[in-house]
């Protein structure tokens, strides 16, 4: 059998330039780690990373928008949803990175350990601290993760999806383990995240293999065509679809693949939790959207009920378990699980309103959650972060600005009108009602009432209790300030004038295939 002659895939560089810029910045970041003196690394890395993402965003808006193509031999597709998702990831990553970089007057990001490789409490760690070691490697790591997140929703081939999944996951595993305080907790979270992530990746790759067995191709379009024509191989298809979904639902934090979320969000450096809750969710749901709306589109009546059950479980378990949390980071983690359930409701609505609502929800939630975690990082007690709820008592009296902002963000999570949370929920649930998912919307509203109770409990604690002993709020630099301000103001603006973003998401519902 004569091998086909090798044809080099054509790459539309205008379309993929934003990703290349981000990956390129990450590479430069590694060189900076190697060659720039320790003392000035922080102020080189931070502007470099921010500039990389800003340039990428500018290129995305100005050039890539005119290059809506399937490129790189069908492996990558840049279409309206992909551009929207990539743009969302970039904007969210910029404000998340600002919060992550918070140096608190030092020359190193405060949330990260100065010596990630050392054993906690060991002489090596003490030595690193004494020498003033920095942890600026988080910048290139984050850039790699961002690049993976951009590739994830624009991949048009199961293998590329897998690569993107790993590219975004591996840096996150490391970032999770780099907390400066409570390092054992952080390292354990990292280990758990890695093991479970590997476990879910195995499901994904096995599913992809089954689908390859069924369709003879890993390209989304080819899979979809095969579903319409191939008979007799259905035994491979359904399990394949399910197993692929497991890998993605794991990243999205949906029940029953959620167990890692609370532990990881609690153990990870706090701003990293915000980064994961916002950006990873965008990327994961973006990939879910593309796979289910393009590759498995003809199979929608099979996967819709399955995803509906997952959405139901996710909303209920997330909401009910958030009631009993006593740690603010775990509370936000369970809250993020509940929100993932809400987004799933929009995803399975199977109409353009649902897609547009999903995209809107992801962006709106991302801004709020980044700001919320950035605020959590500022509350300290005895030199470490005060994450137990009892330590948050009376913050309304001792720090009205922080408590007020945080309360507002909680109200947005609860979906009170004139916050982005209300508009987002409205968009999602109005898409679901009347499209076979009415019961899901009913459950969603009920769960949203349950979580409102949780958020109000926190607000009451902050305002109506005596201040806790020893809790103090550190004053952040402008970096966290900007991050929180942008997140909060957008939460408000998207609640009052959501129309501009809505118009963007509405024009981003057509998948190129």
């Amino acid at each position, binding site marked *: 059998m004569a091998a086909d002659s090798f044809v080099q895939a054509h790459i539309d560089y205008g379309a993929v330039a934003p990703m290349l810029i981000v990956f390129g910045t990450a590479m430069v970041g590694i060189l900076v780690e190697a060659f720039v003196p320790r003392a000035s690394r922080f102020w080189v890395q931070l502007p470099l990373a921010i500039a990389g993402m800003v340039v990428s965003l500018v290129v995305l808006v100005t050039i890539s928008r005119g290059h809506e193509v399937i490129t790189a031999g069908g492996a990558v597709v840049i279409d309206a949803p992909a551009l929207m998702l990539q743009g969302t990831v970039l904007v969210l990553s910029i404000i998340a990175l600002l919060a992550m970089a918070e140096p608190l007057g030092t020359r190193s990001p405060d949330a990260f350990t100065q010596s990630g490789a050392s054993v906690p409490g060991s002489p090596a760690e003490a030595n690193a601290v004494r020498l003033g070691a920095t942890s600026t490697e988080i910048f290139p790591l984050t850039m790699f993760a961002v690049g993976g997140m951009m590739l994830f929703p624009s991949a048009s081939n199961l293998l590329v999806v897998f690569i993107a999944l790993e590219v975004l996951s591996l840096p996150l595993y490391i970032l999770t383990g780099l907390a400066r305080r*409570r390092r*054992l907790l952080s390292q*354990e979270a990292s*280990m*758990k995240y890695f*093991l*479970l992530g590997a476990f879910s990746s195995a499901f994904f790759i096995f599913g992809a293999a089954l689908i390859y067995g069924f369709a003879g191709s890993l390209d989304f379009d080819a899979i979809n065509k095969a579903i319409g024509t191939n008979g007799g191989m259905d035994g491979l298809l*359904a*399990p394949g679809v*399910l197993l692929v979904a*497991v890998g993605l639902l*794991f990243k999205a934090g949906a029940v*029953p693949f959620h167990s890692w979320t*609370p*532990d990881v969000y609690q153990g990870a450096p706090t701003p990293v939790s915000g980064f994961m809750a916002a950006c990873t969710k965008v990327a994961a749901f973006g990939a879910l959207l593309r796979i289910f709306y393009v590759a498995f589109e003809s199979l929608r009546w*099979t996967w819709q009920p*399955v995803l509906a*059950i997952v959405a139901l479980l996710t909303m209920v*378990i997330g909401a*009910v378990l958030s*009631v*009993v*949390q*006593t*740690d603010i980071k775990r509370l936000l983690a369970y809250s993020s699980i509940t929100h993932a359930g809400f987004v799933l409701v929009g995803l399975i609505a199977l*109409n353009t*309103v649902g897609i*547009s*609502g999903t995209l809107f929800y992801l962006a709106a939630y991302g801004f709020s959650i980044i700001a919320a975690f950035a605020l959590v990082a500022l509350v300290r007690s005895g030199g470490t972060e005060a994450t*137990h*709820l*009892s330590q948050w*008592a009376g913050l309304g009296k001792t720090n009205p600005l922080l408590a007020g902002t945080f309360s507002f963000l909680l*109200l947005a999570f609860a979906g*009170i*009108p*004139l916050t982005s949370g209300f*508009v987002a929920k*409205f968009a999602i*649930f*109005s*898409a679901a*009602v*009347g499209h076979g998912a*009415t019961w899901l*919307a009913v459950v969603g*509203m009920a769960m*949203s*009432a349950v979580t409102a*109770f949780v958020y*109000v*409990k926190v607000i*009451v*604690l902050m*305002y*109506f*209790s005596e201040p806790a002993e020893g809790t103090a709020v550190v004053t952040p630099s402008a970096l966290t300030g900007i991050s929180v301000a942008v997140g909060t103001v957008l939460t408000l603006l998207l609640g009052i004038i*959501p*129309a501009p973003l809505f118009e963007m998401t*509405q024009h981003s519902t057509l998948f190129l295939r």
Partner: protein
Amino acid sequence: MQTLATSVPGLSALATSGDAGVAHNATGVASVGWLIIALPLLGAAILLIGGRRTDKFGPYLAVALSWAAFVVGLLLIIQVHGLNSGDRAFHKHLFSWIPTGGFNLDFGLLMDPLSLAFVMLITFVGSLILVYSLGYMAHDPDRRKFFAYMNLFIASMLTLVLADSYLGLFVGWEGVGLASYLLIGFWNYNPEFASAANKAFFSNRVGDFGFLLAIFFMFSAFGRVDFAGVDAAVPGTGKGTLIGIGLFLLLAACGKSAQAPLQAWLGDAMAGPTPVSALIHAATMVTAGVYLIVRSHVIFDATPDARLAVCIVGAFTLMFGAIVGCAKDDLKKALAASTMSQIGYMVLAAGLGPVGYVFAIFHLLTHGFFKAGLFLGSGSVMHAMNDTINMRRFGGLWWIMKVTWVTFGLGFLAIIGFPGLSGFWSKDKIIEMAFVGSGWRPWVFGLTALIAAGITAFYMTRLFIMTFHSNPRWEKPEFDPHEAPMTMKVPMIVLALGSAFLGLILGPTNIITNWLEPVVGRQEGHAVLSAPVLMILTFVLMVAGIWWAWRLYWVEVPVTPPVGTPLTRLARRDLGQDDFNEAAFQRPGLHLTRALVFADNRGVDGAVGGLAAFIGGTAERLRRLQNGFVRSYALTMLVGVVAILGVLLVVQ
């Protein structure tokens, strides 16, 4: 199921359509109608953003802006009044709010007789209460914040009644909830108040859940959620959908208006400052549910079944509140029970359909005056008695606080329906309308309303005697009662005048019925008992109630409450509403949570929500963390995958 109109022979065919035709684009004052909302909102913004710099003039600014909103409203009414009755509705498009797919939602104002009646109530009574607060809150260090929240509340309430769509109404609905929450918790150094605020928020969320579902069902059935669009689409819609929407709207109304089964929060909400109780928990916010039902009259007209549910809720609550009111020794809680009961009357009237809508609103307006007056009076008594609230410690105050006594007395006579005063004109009409119909309904609803009128007379007389008459149960050096300052007296006098004459001005002259008829429609109904008979029965029951209370309390009131009958003891505990809630909702919720937590390997401290749990918890947590539960996480995932795969294979 036949509609009420065809099944009741006594109902004449005088029915008018409930449509005021198409609302006109706003001209004249109406084109700046948004100022009504913007002015108090501006006040709240200045006071909150301006911070301590506005401490001095802030409260006065807040009061002035609230009066300014009243003036704009008044000018608007004058403009509208000059038009034909069918043309009295203006619509003003403000901006495009939520565009989702093929569904664009605009935010606009609807200024019609119904909303303008509310604008008058809210701005006039609200501004009076703000003036009163100048005196009442004079010594509170945080009074700037108090006035800011009050203005925020007024702006939200005005948004609620002026919005042109259910979604806009919902924005105001949540806004008043938030402002109410802030104001109940205003004196937040007391944890009891905080828990009251919490309870109010939770009850309201249940109501909001109903409201949002109603909105989603409207959206799914009609594709629109503005009043005009919904009203136009109702005739072609299936019965099941309409009943569903109606019942969800009722649930929403129950949450906001403290109707059964969501009534538990109102009594506790009295923990807030007294002007708050007067404005929010008596005159305006708690009546929003009645507004919602009346505003949705087209939906309720089309679903007699949903209306029956409304009637049942109203009748049950009005009796419930009246019984609880008889047993309370806390002056404000007794008034809160009375509010619950009076709103029950309004809800019952609204549930009666076209025969009752007008009177529901009429009673709402008169009630707004006399109940606000009663609350301000009770605030004046508290002010004089070192913030004591227990009526068993009052007595004989009438000689010392004459103005309070007279104004409170007028409110008291108005609420019991003393002939000629406001409550008489509005409540007697509701009682009469409750007797309209055939079969069991007029007898059940009518007799409930009638008997409750007697009970109302009993508990209000009891309250009045225990406070102002009977033997003094306080000692001079400890208490030094005195009359309130002028800023408090004047609003009380104005509200007392309203309590006395508003009913007479609006009722027998048919001003209120003619004003509201173009919006909500109206039918004449013939009661199964004739009007004079009902009037005499009501009067006799009222006198009996007064006499009974006079017999029990006039001479002497013991300072320690007697043991009382089992019913009294039950009524003191709000007829077991908290026990019911605990058994019906909290415990199952707790068990469900526990069960789920058990499944969720670790991560919560033993004490659910306990704040003291932190001590010693951290070490324990860290130790447990090293145990490597990752295997069970992986197992959860695997079980999940296998389960779903199994389901999939079975289905296929």
